[in-house]
């Protein structure tokens, strides 16, 4: 082996490091370490002059290992690896000592910080000594993309990618795409008609030559890695032949059996064979086997008789489709919080207490009341209270703010004012109108004469204490600005319910090996600088599955995720993890312990030779198998026993 020549560069990071750590002392100390040829310090190592300093030393002094003592490797390891690579040194012959995040920023004790910095430098030097050059392998990126969830976010991402003539598989669980947005009547703050802006996009998705739309379908299994994933998708039986059906809907008209409409949240009925709403994409009905007379009692078949195209197919079975894609975008959205557990608000107990989403349907021109804002008995409400933060900003339910409720509450106030003569009360804690045009919308509603009462409602009751309250719902709480407890008798109560993670978010996370943050939404790679990527390369998130947000934000994220995917497609290849594990087949006893441990099934047993072997393309380099091998037959590149021992020795100087 050629002689090891190590160069050390201690960064001041302006004053971030140098203020606490004595960089001169560390630099001097480094010269005493084995194989160190040069040791320098500089104001900003990551700047061009800093990097050039390293490059020049490599040229002049023949360095073949480099240590930079500065910030976290998660910040600048890629930068310096590139630097030495440009100077002709294998990028893996590099090590970083984190003397900022783990040292100068966590203590004010100069002496302790300097000692710790020395130890970290000594560890890095000892470890880099044993580093071996690693080969960077690349694999091609499959240009197809899988998008899971066909709400506005999924639709947006699908169209952006497909418009660049790359194939998209869009998988939607419901019979139609559209998500929550298609349930709305108007959208804040502009009050555009939701269907008017969304249906054209839905139609484009349905007709796009580069989008293969799979509705009434779910992804069951994902394998592989960035660039080449395989997905197994279950297309549930619709009992209607998609190729034959032309969407005439005669089957729906003729079907004599009914069930509650999911789309209208149980506020209306649909048939046993149905499309969730008139503008559904695709416009192909499904048979709900739990309510169809044929599936329940083996009689009827009315739909079949009337369908002239013979599209009804009672023999249809679920289909399993396998697709290969290079990237995945998850856009599974949110669930609306169920307020039943907050018994004091009387949801489910009183007739005229509604959730936000239910009220969207009531407002909707094609909803159960044809857009008339009416009570259960059909009469118009004379007063309506909207309760904010139901399930949000509340440790007993969700600690976070759902971000859109204040705004949709204002939207409702407007719609109620526009369509009825009712008094409207907004019972809020804080008005959060942060977006573009939102504060202006709030102002407009104030002008429209809405009553704003500051205080979280304690109870909604029907126990009247005077004449005026008879037959009303009485909203009780404190008006915190008046410093008085109040009782407001109203006819209708709307609960501005929270947005929460999908009930199956944990399973979806597992399927994709992505993580959830403490609130249950999917975790982005970095909250500020990498909001649509996840810790799993090639898997992106957009829309409300990442956290509550409004439509503009969901769309922006979707476009961002699409761009990230397109960037990978256009580059055409991805680097594989180089620090993988390898089995020394001489030492392997064939015990197979490692085979089961590997989370990526990268290890297989070679029957003929009675040894285990690692598929380098699949290995992600976690090291679990290495630690478990009883014969010490597995080596983890860059994390060998030798390297770690040297590092331990180093930190303990």
């Amino acid at each position, binding site marked *: 082996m050629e002689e090891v020549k190590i160069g050390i560069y201690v960064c001041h990071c302006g004053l971030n490091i140098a203020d606490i750590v004595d960089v001169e002392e560390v630099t001097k100390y480094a010269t005493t370490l084995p194989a160190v040829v040069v040791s320098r310090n500089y104001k900003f190592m990551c700047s061009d002059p800093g990097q050039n300093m390293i490059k020049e030393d490599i040229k002049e002094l023949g360095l073949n290992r480099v240590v930079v003592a500065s910030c*976290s490797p*998660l910040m600048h390891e890629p930068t310096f690896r590139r630097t030495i690579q440009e100077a002709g040194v294998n990028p893996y012959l590099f090590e970083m000592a984190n003397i900022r*995040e783990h040292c100068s920023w966590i203590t004010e004790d100069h002496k302790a910080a300097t000692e710790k910095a020395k130890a970290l430098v000594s*560890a890095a030097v000892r470890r880099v000594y044993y580093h071996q050059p690693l080969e960077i392998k690349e694999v091609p990126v499959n240009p197809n993309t899988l998008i899971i969830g066909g709400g506005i976010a999924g639709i947006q991402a699908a169209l952006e990618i497909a418009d660049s003539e790359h194939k998209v598989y869009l998988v939607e669980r419901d019979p139609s795409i559209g998500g929550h947005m298609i349930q709305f009547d108007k959208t804040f703050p502009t009050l555009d008609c939701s269907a008017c802006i969304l249906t054209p996009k839905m139609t484009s998705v349905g007709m796009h030559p580069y989008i293969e739309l799979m509705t009434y379908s779910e992804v069951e299994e994902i394998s592989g890695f960035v660039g080449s994933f395989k997905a197994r998708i279950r297309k549930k039986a619709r009992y209607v032949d998609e190729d034959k059906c032309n969407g005439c809907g005669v089957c729906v008209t003729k079907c004599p059996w009914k069930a509650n409409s999911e789309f209208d949240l149980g506020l209306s009925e649909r048939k046993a064979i149905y499309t969730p709403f008139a503008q559904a994409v695709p416009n192909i009905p499904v048979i709900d086997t739990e309510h169809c007379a044929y599936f329940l009692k083996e009689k009827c078949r009315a739909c079949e008789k009337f369908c002239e195209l013979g599209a009804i197919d009672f023999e249809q079975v679920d289909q399993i489709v396998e697709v290969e894609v290079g990237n995945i975008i998850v856009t599974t959205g949110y669930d609306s919080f169920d307020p039943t557990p907050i018994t004091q608000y009387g949801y489910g107990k009183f007739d005229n207490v509604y959730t936000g989403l239910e009220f969207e349907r009531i407002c909707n021109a094609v909803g159960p009341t044809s857009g008339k804002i009416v009570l259960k008995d059909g009469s118009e409400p004379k007063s309506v209270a909207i309760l904010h933060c139901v399930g949000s900003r509340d440790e007993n339910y969700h600690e976070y703010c759902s971000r859109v409720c204040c705004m949709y509450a204002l939207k409702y106030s407007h719609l109620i004012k526009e369509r009825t003569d009712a008094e409207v009360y907004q019972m809020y804690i804080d008005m959060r109108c942060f977006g573009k045009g939102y504060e202006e919308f709030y102002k407009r509603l104030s002008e429209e004469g809405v009553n704003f009462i500051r205080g979280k409602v304690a109870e909604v009751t029907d126990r009247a204490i005077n004449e005026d309250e008879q037959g009303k719902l009485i909203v009780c709480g404190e008006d915190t600005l008046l410093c008085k407890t109040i009782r407001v008798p109203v006819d209708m109560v709307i609960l501005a319910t929270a947005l929460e993670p999908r009930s199956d978010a944990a399973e979806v996370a597992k399927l994709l090996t992505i993580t959830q943050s*403490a609130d249950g939404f999917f975790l982005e790679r970095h909250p500020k600088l990498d909001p649509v990527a996840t810790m799993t390369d090639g898997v992106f998130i957009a829309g409300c599955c990442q956290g509550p947000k409004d439509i503009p934000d969901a769309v922006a994220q979707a476009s961002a995720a699409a761009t990230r995917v397109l960037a990978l497609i256009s580059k055409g290849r991805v680097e594989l993890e180089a620090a993988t594990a390898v089995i020394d087949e001489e030492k392997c006893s064939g015990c197979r312990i490692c085979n089961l441990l590997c989370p990526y099934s990268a290890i297989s047993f070679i029957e003929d030779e009675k040894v285990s072997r690692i598929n380098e393309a699949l290995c992600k380099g976690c090291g679990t198998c290495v630690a478990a091998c009883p014969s010490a037959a597995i080596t983890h590149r860059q994390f060998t026993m030798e390297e770690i021992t040297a590092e331990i020795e180093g930190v*303990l100087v």
Partner: protein
Amino acid sequence: MSFEPKIVGFLCNWCSYRGADLAGTARMKCAPNVRIIRVMCSGRVEPAFIVKAFQLGADGVLVLGCHPGDCHYAEGNYKTIRRMSLLQKMLPQLGIETDRVRLDWVSASEGDRFVSIVDDMTEKVRALGPFTKNSDEEKHG
């Protein structure tokens, strides 16, 4: 001057190392006694590393990974749990007080948790005093 223990920390790259970074980025103050070695996953931590650390002069060893269920490699940390509980049982035989070794979880967003674990561990090890066990005895252990 009071005794300043040396603690070796093995932190996984995906959660705990980021949590430790966050503590720094947020300028939280904590005991400077834990010296961090980054591994890709807590599942990489072999009992041998820990024993080695004590042989080489550590007074304590802290292993941090992602919360169970959150391991970047799906289930590496479950392996760690099993391995560490076996090791915990063997520690007395090796003449190492069980309080000198700790396995815990810190997510990428838990800078504060990282700080409290480090401070707590440092205090405990400080109370135990320096680890003194010559390698001779270890062989008999």
